[in-house]
């Protein structure tokens, strides 16, 4: 899969490489390229989180289908709200601000800020992975049609945690913390 690597990260050949060598001689452009690479890394990370969350949503939908077949119509609205909650977190992650500064930024990258952002990103990953346990509980509850609401609440609490983490991340990027 070597050739799958995106040229924006490993741009040592082709037209892009030549152009990069040329513009590196422009003052300040190298710093821009550095930020560009960090932005790209950030995007890749967020895309990964987004894919993880999408897979969790599919699980919720599977559980919803199973519950409906078993006569669990009364849980549909709550499960749908769970599915929408995952969508909301997913959309926030996909459109979250980048840690690499914007194109017009003249400042160097604040490494301390970046560290804090990466901590949040790691926490997000941990929280998304913790959804597995809660979804397992929900699946078991759906199979026995017992304590389904409590299991739904368990998943929702993780989603609330994810939203809080995203809020904190946004505040750092806006310079509010």
């Amino acid at each position, binding site marked *: 899969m070597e*050739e*799958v*690597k*995106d*040229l924006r990260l*490993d741009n040592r*050949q*082709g*037209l*892009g490489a030549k152009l990069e060598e040329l513009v590196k001689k422009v003052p300040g452009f190298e710093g821009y390229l550095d930020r560009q690479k960090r932005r790209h890394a950030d995007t890749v990370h967020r*895309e990964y989180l987004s894919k993880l969350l999408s897979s969790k949503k599919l699980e919720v*939908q599977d559980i*919803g*289908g199973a519950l*409906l077949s078993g*006569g669990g*119509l*009364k849980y*549909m*609205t709550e*499960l*749908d709200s769970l*599915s929408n909650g995952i*969508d909301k977190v997913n959309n926030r992650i996909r459109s979250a601000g980048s840690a690499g500064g914007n194109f017009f930024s003249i400042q160097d990258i604040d490494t301390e800020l970046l560290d804090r952002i990466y901590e949040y990103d790691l926490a997000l990953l941990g929280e998304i992975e913790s959804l597995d346990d809660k979804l397992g509980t929900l699946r078991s509850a759906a199979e026995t049609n017992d304590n389904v609401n409590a299991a739904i609440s368990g998943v929702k609490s993780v989603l609330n945690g994810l939203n809080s983490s995203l809020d904190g991340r946004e505040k750092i990027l806006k310079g509010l913390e």
Partner: protein
Amino acid sequence: MFGRLKRAVSDGVNSVTNSVTGATEGLIEVIEWRDYDPKVIVKRFPENGPADIKFGAQLIVRPNQAAVFFYQGQALDVFGAGTHTLETANLPLLMNIIKHVTGGHNIFSAEVFFVNQMVIDDMKWGTPNPIDLKDPDLGWVQLRAFGEFKVRVTDPKLFINEVVGGRRMYSAQEVRNFLMGSVRTKLNDLIGTTFESYGKIRSNTEDMAAAMKFKLREDFGKYGIELQDFFISDISVPEEIQEAFRMRAKMGALGISGPNAYTQFQASNAMLEAAKNPGTGGQAMSAGMGMGMGMMFPQMMQQSMGYPPQGGYPGYPPPGYPPPGYPPQGGYPPQGGYPPQQGYPPQQGQPPQGYPPQQGHPPQGQAPEGPPADPNQAKIAKLRELVEMGVLTQEEFEAKVAAIQG
């Protein structure tokens, strides 16, 4: 090099704008869907089919778009949002093929399908044919429903391969038409398997809409489409059944219940209508009906509200009431029984034997015995009472009496 990069190809006008001299005519160096339209879900670039694209060309994919590269009718690489330089590194599938075909030349002939991945909203759905439901109270009812839903293309490659094919454009309306069959089928299925009554449907519309999302997920997903929202604006039954619901609500509000509730309600309605239209419409026959109903009304009131007071009203009944010849001799209901002893109520929805009557109504042999000695006299008495109630004027009364006697 920079001069060549300036040359852009706009799919919006489907033309090549060569603003720099010396550029190779016909080669594409910038690929972009500029004239974005939310009602267009897929747009092919170039519109007229494959064109020569240069290695190193720029592919600009906007947020919530995806670009699918097609080579010789086969969907290969997919690009998300961003600016991509088309090189061997990021077109792995396409380049592997091209290398074999062209021997590694720096031009390849391909086409790009841009896919709009925004949420497509305002997709109306409805049931052109009614859905049958066996309701415990209403029997078989025909339901009609309508609403809207929102979808998003989540797997552009699958969507193009399975739905769009080689079309140069695919609109939101076409997506809607494509999905409508699934919506109707699943709605039929959901109503048939999950709901026992129309009342339950009405009280669980939100759960039903959520359930539709779960039911439609796989149907849509196999085409690379995700259902984002599903709304049910209304589920209704035919007008005559709605009228029955309204009537039931009115009866409840009036405190009318029991096996004869409907008859009582109809009677009170007719009386109220007659009171609203003094001197019109009723004429002699309707006046008589109104009287009969009027006689039922006090009984209804007494049953439902403990009214009128014991001891009766002062001045009631009015003078001349009851009219001569009423009740009929032999009393009412007629001897011999009404309703008939046999065949009523009808078994399993079948009319009783002898019904409908062959010669008029009621059936011979079961008619009330002892009709008034002089039917005209009874009518006149009822009309007189209407005069006393203020329904008819004296002149109208005299005219009607003359008509009856003449």
